């Protein structure tokens, strides 16, 4: 037991040593969402923030169609914690990603509707939340953990 306590303290000290530099507060939030056209290769390019990624896997996961990305618009916004919220017309989910080593890693998949997909979804920045508007009058407040609260008119 004693050895176990010593080992745990050592690990704790080691981890603390590795994360000694922290810049805070930091706000990664975008003031407004970006609506990006998916190109023939499944890529989207965000010019203002200078980044791009491939959406093939995202559309495959959402629609089970490998060519489901063709001609689609992707809606994308980043919250103040740095998570990307991504969805598109007819999606049932909002996907939450974080950037890691040249890729976007799925952090959360927030289910919004059950049977049919959303119509005209849109994100608004409502720090500390992301407002999701869909089906004309449906509104949800999201964070990277999921739905914080729902409002409907």
């Amino acid at each position, binding site marked *: 037991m004693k050895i176990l306590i010593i080992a745990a303290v050592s690990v704790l000290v080691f981890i603390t040593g590795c994360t000694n530099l922290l810049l805070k507060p930091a706000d990664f939030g975008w003031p*407004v969402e970006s609506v990006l056209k998916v190109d023939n290769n499944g890529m989207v390019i965000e010019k203002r923030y200078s980044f791009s990624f491939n959406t093939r896997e995202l559309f495959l996961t959402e629609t089970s169609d490998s060519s489901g990305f063709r001609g689609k618009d992707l809606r994308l916004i980043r919250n103040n914690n740095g998570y990307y919220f991504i969805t598109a017309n007819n999606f049932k989910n909002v996907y939450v990603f974080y950037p890691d080593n040249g890729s976007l890693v799925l952090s959360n998949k927030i289910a919004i509707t059950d049977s049919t997909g959303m119509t005209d979804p*849109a994100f608004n920045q409502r720090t500390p939340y992301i407002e999701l508007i869909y089906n004309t009058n449906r509104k949800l407040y999201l964070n990277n953990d999921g739905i914080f609260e729902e409002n409907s*008119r």
Partner: protein
Amino acid sequence: MKNLKIILGMILIFSFYGSYATAQQDFKIVQDFKSKVQEIKDGIKKTDSLAELIQFEGQINQLAASNASNKSLLDKSLYPDDFNSSIENLRNDLEVRKKDFTQISALETRVSVLSMHISDLNDRNVELMSLVKNLTEQSKNDKDKIVLLQRSITALRTSLRRRDELVISMIDSLMPADFRNSGTLSNQEKQNIYSKAQKRNIVENLQNAIDENIMFMKVTTLKPDDIKAIKDKKQQFEKTWRSFGPKLIEIYSERGKKVKNAKEIDSAFEKWNSAIDQEAWSSIRKEFSDFDIRLNDYSNGMEFTRAMINYTQDKIKNIKTKSDSAVKDYLVFADTVWFGNIKPIWVPYLIDNNLLTSVQKDKIESGILKWKNVVYPVDYSWIYIVGSLLISIIIIVLIRRNYKKKNESLNSNDGVKE
């Protein structure tokens, strides 16, 4: 504590809900604002008149007022602009365009006035040109007409100069330098230039100015300074046309009208250039013909040199005996025309303008020198005279010496006898 967090969260959400009860999309707000800005910007650019432009003032004010509540969102989203700078840019565009119209209006008035003056001067030039032609003929027989001819030529020269200045001024007014130097013109600007160029007969006036300047050179005999002045004028016209013509041809080409006329201006300048060169030779020809000297035809330095050398060689061949007329021919040709007129007045101009080389000039003068040597052969009589005198003196000296010797020998013989 947990309940307090939930209550705070609900207050926050309700406050959002209150502000955006109609579920507005921020993206749409930003896009609508951007579209409206672009729409007003385009509208300002395409506007045809100052009156139409006024309506955009109201639109800009309305855009600013209706989006004031979204200022914070727009400030963050309109990177690199913001809400205020976007509105300010529109107001600046409006002011710049207003100035354009004010300037265009002033230019239009000026062009109208210029057009009238040009038309009057064109008529006057035609009259003067005809008068000069008639007087040139009459002055050959009637010396009194020469003064009148000179006056008419001066009047014509002044009138042409004024008309030419007006034509250049009108071109400048039609297309200000800013337009000429700009890479592209909008369709609206092209249409404006096209209709004004048509209305003011720009191409016709330019062509007319070139033709009349060529005609002026044909009906008058000019001195190098006059030709230099015409050459300077031609360069000024050409410079103006080079900066204006290609844009005008492009505009005419797009409308399929008067392209040929506009393109002919380039060849008209070539004709003018050639006429200027020929004017020098023509004036030189007249200088010779005024003294009844007929040279073979020439229109360049090489031909002129050949004609001059041929003339002097012919003269040398035809001199059989030294006569007064041969001397007179030489004196008129060499002293009066060449050394008295052509060489001091025309040769520097010809050499400066690469119409004659120094080598060609030296060849001509060498021919004249040969002719001189024939007309005035070198006189060797003084050598004979001096030689004869010397020989006579020597003979006299020798005779006297012999006589002296004879006398001495006779005297000595007489002494012996005694």
